[in-house]
Structures are given as C-alpha cells and as structure tokens.
C-alpha cells in the first residue's frame, strides 16, 4: 500500500509529507481557508469554485461535465468521483479534501461525506425562488468560506456588468419570446420553464421566456415537437448537448421546416450549457445567446 493513493496517513503525517514538498504552508496557514483542498459534489459549486480561482481536488461526473457544461474548463488533475447519483466515497477519501461543497440535492449523502471532511451545502434551485439571485448569494457565501470574498464580489459584479452590456445590445429582440429547449430525440424536447436559470437570465437581458406551461424544477420533460405550433412567434433556442443526428434529421423534417419559427429563421443552436449551473453557466448562456443573435434579424 505505497504510492500516491495509500491510505492510513493521519492528517499530521500528510502535512509532514507535504511539507517536504513545500506545500505545507498552504495547509497550516491559520486563516486556512485560502488554499483549502476542496471537493465539489454539486456542479454549480464546481463551476463557482473554479470561477473564484479555486481548483477542486475532486468533483463528480467530470466526463459529462466536460461535454455538457464545458465552461469553466476542469483541469485534468481533478479526480473524478463518478456519477452524481452514485458518488464514489472511496475516491473522495483518496482525494483528501478538507471541505466538501454540496447542495440539498445530495442531502442523503451528507453523513457519508461528513465522514471524509466537513460539508458545506449551498442551495440555488428551490421552488418559487430566482436561481440567479440565489447563485449570486451562493457565490458570495462560497467566497466567504474560501477566503475569496473579493473574488466573489468581483465575479458577481462582472456577471452583472456583462448582463447589463448584453441587455443593451439585445434590446431590439425584446418583442418576441424565447423558447428554451433541450432535444432528446427528433420528436421530443425538454422545455425550460419560468423557474429555470435560463428564464431568469433572459429576464435580466430584457427578454422573456415563451414557455407558459408549468414546470417542475425548471424543466418539463419530453414535450412533443408539435407543441411548437402553439407559440409561432417565438425564437427556438436549442441548448445542448444535442444527440448527434438530431439537428440533421430535424432539417430533413417537413413539419420542422414548416414551423413558423423555423421558416422565419428563428432557431438558435446554442451548444451545451449546464441548466442547473451557477453564475458561470448564466454568463456562458448570455454570451452564447448574444453571439448567436448578433447579426440576426430581430423582426
């Protein structure tokens, strides 16, 4: 049991051995928090930590994160903790975190996570609450916890400024609503509702969401394509990841081509954005939307 992942080290032994490599200063610093070894269970917290300049030692389901959330880039040395629905506690143990960032979604894991390190839970998505404001609050809370309060304030301000700037530029598009979708196959999409991060960001951009129906936790699963007929004036925004042949097949579908939104050229393929993210996801969404609409006809 030697090698980098050997267990049975006490924290003191770990610090001593790290001292030899010159890393101990960061570990024993009294304000401590500045360079904590952090593990992120929740993706929103993973991206917030990265945005604050903290690279976690471990995080969940990185294979999918790199494909479905994309930003911020996760360095290769971050250990993968496996599926979010099946978290690998042993892998977490090997990563030796000093703080674990979680959310209420993972409450049933709390006791197990606390066995490894202290757990801090940050909640963004709750019924009847604006996810964007909650993401701002979570960024500040995480900043305070990691002694990065200034970075957190800067992140919130940067996001606010970016949205404000894009809002001015997108003002001509305010007449039409935007339908936020994620396609499962050629016949079905998931619609993001009024309580989603996307709808919240749209509002901050001075735009409005087209999905009037109810939604449970931000999205309605598997809506038939024919539902598009009920909102002919809308823009269709396709948020990835989209299965590879779906867009090609859609373009070959007479029904799809005849939809007023499609016929009117009001379809935007946005690429992947994490729909349950925090400020970095909100910023990525706003930037991609702004870029996609640039040069488009707003009528």
């Amino acid at each position: 049991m030697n090698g980098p992942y050997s267990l049975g080290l006490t924290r003191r032994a770990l610090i001593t051995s790290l001292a030899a490599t010159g890393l101990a200063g960061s570990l024993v610093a009294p304000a401590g928090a500045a360079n904590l070894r952090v593990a992120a269970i929740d993706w929103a917290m993973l991206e917030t930590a990265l945005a604050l300049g903290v690279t976690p030692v471990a995080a969940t389901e990185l294979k999918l994160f790199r494909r479905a959330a994309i930003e911020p880039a996760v360095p290769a040395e971050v250990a993968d903790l496996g599926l979010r629905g099946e978290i690998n506690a042993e892998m977490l143990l090997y990563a030796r975190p000093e703080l674990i960032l979680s959310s209420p979604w993972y409450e049933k894991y709390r006791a197990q996570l606390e066995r490894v390190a202290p757990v801090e839970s940050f909640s963004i998505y709750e019924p009847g609450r604006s996810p964007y404001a909650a993401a701002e609050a979570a960024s500040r809370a995480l900043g305070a916890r990691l002694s990065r309060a200034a970075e957190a304030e800067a992140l919130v301000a940067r996001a606010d400024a970016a949205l404000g700037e894009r809002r001015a530029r997108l003002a001509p598009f305010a007449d039409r609503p935007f339908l936020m979708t994620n396609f499962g196959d050629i016949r079905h999409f998931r619609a993001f509702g009024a309580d989603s991060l996307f709808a919240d960001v749209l509002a901050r951009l001075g735009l409005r969401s087209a999905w009037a129906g109810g939604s449970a936790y931000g999205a309605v699963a598997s809506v038939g394509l024919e539902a598009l007929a009920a909102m002919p004036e809308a823009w269709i925004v396709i948020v990835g990841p989209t299965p590879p042949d779906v867009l090609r097949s859609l373009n070959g579908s007479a029904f799809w081509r005849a939809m007023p939104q499609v016929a009117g050229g009001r379809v935007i393929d946005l690429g992947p954005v994490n729909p349950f993210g925090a400020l970095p996801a909100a910023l990525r969404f706003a930037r991609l939307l702004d870029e996609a609409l640039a040069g488009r006809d707003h009528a």
Partner: protein
Amino acid sequence: MREAGLRGWAPWLLLGLVAAALWAATLGRHLGAGLTPSSELDRLLLLYSLIPRAATALLAGAALGLAGALLQSALDNPLAEPATLGVSAGAQLALTLAALLAPGLGGLGREAAAFAGGAGAVAAVLALTWRRGLDPVSVVLTGMIVAMIASSLSAALILSQGEYLFALLIWGGGSLSQQSWGPAGAITAALALAALPAALLARPLGVIATGDAGARGLGAPVAAIRLAALGVGVALATTVAAEVGLIAFVGLAGPALARLSGARTTKAVLLASPAVGAMLLWLADGAVQSLPAGFDQIPTGAATALLGAPLMLRLLPRLKMADRPQRPVRASSRPAARTFAVLLALAALVLLAAVALGRAPDGWHAATGAGFAELWPFRWPRTAAAAAAGAMLGAAGVIVQRMTGNPLASPEVLGVSAGAGLGLAVVMLLATSTALPLRFAGSACGALAALVLMLAMSGARGVGAERFLLAGATLSALCLAALNAVIATASTRAFALLGWISGSTSAIGPDEALVACAAAVALALPLAFVGRWLDVLPLGAPVARSLGLGLQPARLALTALAALLAAAAALIVGPLSFVGLVAPHAAYASGLTRPSAHLAGGALNGAILMVTADLLARTVIFPYQLPLGLFASLLGGAYLVWLLRTR
C-alpha cells in the same frame, strides 16, 4: 356459432367508438370545435402530427398484434409476445449500442440493428430452452430473464456514459408523438412485407396447432414453418421498437383478447389480432392525450400496460390455456451439511472480499491495517445492507415458491417487489415527509397487496402454474408501468424513484445498514418456526388440520412474512434484482430440499449473490459505480440462464 362470434366482437365496436371519440376530442383541443384547420399552422399540425400520430398508433398496434399472434403460433405458447421473449429489450440494447458506437446511423441502419438485437435475443432464448423441448413456461421465463439482462445492460451503458434520464425515459416509455409520416411509413412497409408470409403461414401454422405429430403426418416441414413465423414476428416487433420505442403488452393482449372474442382458428387469430392490437393502442394513445396537463406527457407505452394489464387480469380466468404439469426441479443428492459448509465458506470469502478489496486510481488494493480502518466505515454499511437485502429476498423467494408450489415464482416475477415500489411511490407523492418508517410502511403495504392478490389467484380453482405466472408478470408490468408514468413527470420525486428502481446503495450509511440487518434478523427468526408449515401447506387442508395446524392462519402468517421481507429488501435494492428467484432455485438444486434447509440456503445464497454484485458494481468501471440493483440483475440473470441450461 356465428351469432356468438358476432357478440364477441360487439365490445370492440364500442371500444373503437370510444377511441374515435377520444381522437375527435384531441383534434378539437388543437383545432377548435369545428375540427377544421383555420390556419396554415393548424393544417400542418393536422397533417404532420395529429393524423400521423393516430396512424402510427393504429399501425404499431396492428404490427404488435400480428407479431404476438405469429410468435404465439410459432412457439405454441400463449404467453409469447415481443416483451416476454426478450425481443423488445434485445432491440433496445442493440439500439443503445448503435447510438453509442455509431451515432450517425440512419433509419434503415437503426432498423437493421434493432432486428439483429431482437433476433439475437430470441435465438438465445430458444437455444437455452431447446433441450427442454421449448416448454412454454421455460421459454417465457428465459425470455423474461434475457429481457431483464438486456435492459439492465442498456441502462448500465447509458448510466456509464453519464447520460441521464431524458433519452432513457422516452425510450422506455414508447411515446407516439409524431411530426412526420416516417415511422408510420416504416411500419406500413413492415406490415405490407409481413402480410404475404403471414397469409401463407396461416394454414400450416393451423395444422401445427393440432400437434406436431399430425403436422409431420401431413408432410409439413414443422421446423421451417415455425422459424419463418418467428422471423416475421420478430421483424414486425423490432420495426416498432426502432420507430417508436418500447410498447409492451399489445402483442400479448391482441391475440389473447382476439381468442376471447371468439377467434378459434389460427387463421382467425392471425386476422383478428392486428385489428385488436390496433384498437388497443389507439385507445391507449387517445386516453393519454386526454389526461390533464402535467400528466399528458406520460408515454403511451406506459399507458398500454396500465390499460392492458387490468383487462388481462380480469379476463385471465376465461383464457383457454393448457396448464401443463410443472417439471420438478432436479435436486442434487449431496448431503445438506456439506452444501452448507460450502455456502458458509463462500459467504465468508465474499464478505471478506467486499470489505477488503477495492480499486484506487493506481490499481487494485487489498486493504490492510490503517488503510482498512479508514475504508471500513464506507464499505461495511453497503456490504451489510446488500447482504441483508439478498438474504431477505432469498427467504421471501423460498416462501413464495413453496407456498405456490411453483419453482419459478419469486417476489420479482409475481409483482411483489414492483408492488412495493408502487407503495413507495404513493408515499412519496402524497406524504410531506419521507422518513424511513413511512417509506417502509408504504412499500410493505404495496408488497402485501400484490402478494395477497397473487395468492388469491393461485388459490382460485382452475388457475394452473402458467396462468399464475402470467398473472404475476402482468401485475409486475402494471406496477412498473405506473412507476414509469410517475418518473416521466421528471420531478424531484421522480429522480428519487429512478434511483430506487435502479437499486442505488452508494448513499447507505451505518444507521440504514443496521436497520436493514435488524429487519433481516427480525423477519428471518420467525422463519425458523415455520419450516413445518411449509412442509405441510402444499399437502392441503385435511392433512394440515390433522396435524393441528390451522391452514388459514398459517397461510396468512407466511404471506405477511414474505411480503415484509420483499418490501424491506426492495427498499434497498429496488424491484429488479432477480435474486429472489435465483437464490431459492440454487439452494434447492444444490440439495437443500427440506423447508428449513431450503430457507437457510436461500437466504445464504441471496446474501452471497448480492454482496458479490455490490463488490463488482463498485469496482468494474471505477471510479464510476453502477447501481447495485441493476448489477445484481445482470449477475442473477446470467446465473439463472446457466441454471436453466444445465438443468
């Protein structure tokens, strides 16, 4: 005779009218009361969505009905249909593989893949049951196991890619929502291609139905005819699977209801089944679209089982079916003591491996000393919970198998585990708190209701082993379909239920593990005193009375125990592990035939299987882990296939 036949079809006329009325209502909701498109958009909707959807429902229903009729004639097996033969699940696995390996595959490629998967599954089922003369129960049992292995593999593949839920939901549910004539066209083509062979096969299949000997006497090439009918049936079913997904039950209900309505000859069944299937699916699809907002996203495939299964249960007693005698399980004559020694040694070995072995980023490790001490708190709870769940399922399986005298009965097959899930779902939907006692109460009530229903059916006169299993499989399908419908609403509760169905154990802590072990002990201890009951019960009331045993109280106590065991286990590993079927089987086959020995052996086997599954689920695709329930069904299914083959 003719009049009776006509009267048999009268309900279908009525159902057809209901389906048409539902469709008219759907049109009205989209187009307004006049049912005429008032704009270009409405015209598009009518032409590319509403009409193709109805056409697809009718065509897919017809294809499935014909497929079911062909498969049933080919195998001389009234339980055969695409789902029970593993055809649909095999097609789904092939399509999942194709989506992962060759994402750009077009329509025809997808259909070829689906056909290969479905045909492969049937071929496996037939090869495995060949030596048993394709005995109907063996074929369907093997088919269900192959189906379960295939769907577990599909789910594991999807999960290992980190793709959650969305595609899985559409797929598993079988949504009929349409925006083109493509799927309707493909199914029409398949039906057209199948019509001629089906017509040509009708007479020879009818001759075969009179008995192989008679057919050979007439010079009919029996094997070739059966194979041709199988091929056509599989092609029809896999086309539907590739175009609209999994729609269970129509292939079973179509021919069965056609026979009940008066179709006597093979030719009549082949003609009537597509009509009945088409009507059923159209009706189901109309019903789904008429649901209030929020529930109208429920996939039609879930609804067919919800509508079809109760109908089936209701009509089952009237179903004409030759109840063949069960072939007894051949037991080894090895002395019980030696078998127990082997099992105990195996259990010790597996438990040791489960807590000591694991993978780290740099490879496999056998933990010792301080490393072991640090890993112990993470490994023992899930291992203990897995062992407890396995033991409880094994014991419940022994009780159910002995009470019904049916070696193929088990909590999973009889819908007891799925009933527990339904009870759990009700608690999650209605209660504000989801504390463990409440969840257990819910799943125990569900399990008990399912088991009482099944035992009532097994006790009813004239219900033989086959009918009983069919009723159980139907009940199981019904409960799982209801769960699918809840999951399709995609709420947080749906996520929790999905986690439960896949049997996730990674969050189990020491408290839950202790509760699981306590439940196993508390529920297993009374079993030590009921060994004699299990011996006596199958002998009937007079013998039981003469031995001073009240038949009803004994049955009641055993039923309650089995339901509680199954419910507690299902809370931990979900409804699909198959361990409750495999463990008692293996115990009996290895010579533990006396009730007490059978119980102890079944429980030990269950624990061994489940702990092994947990160890593998934790390590095979490290650092990713798979849910235990899914993995156990792979292991249990593979074991059972082997058992069936060598038996």
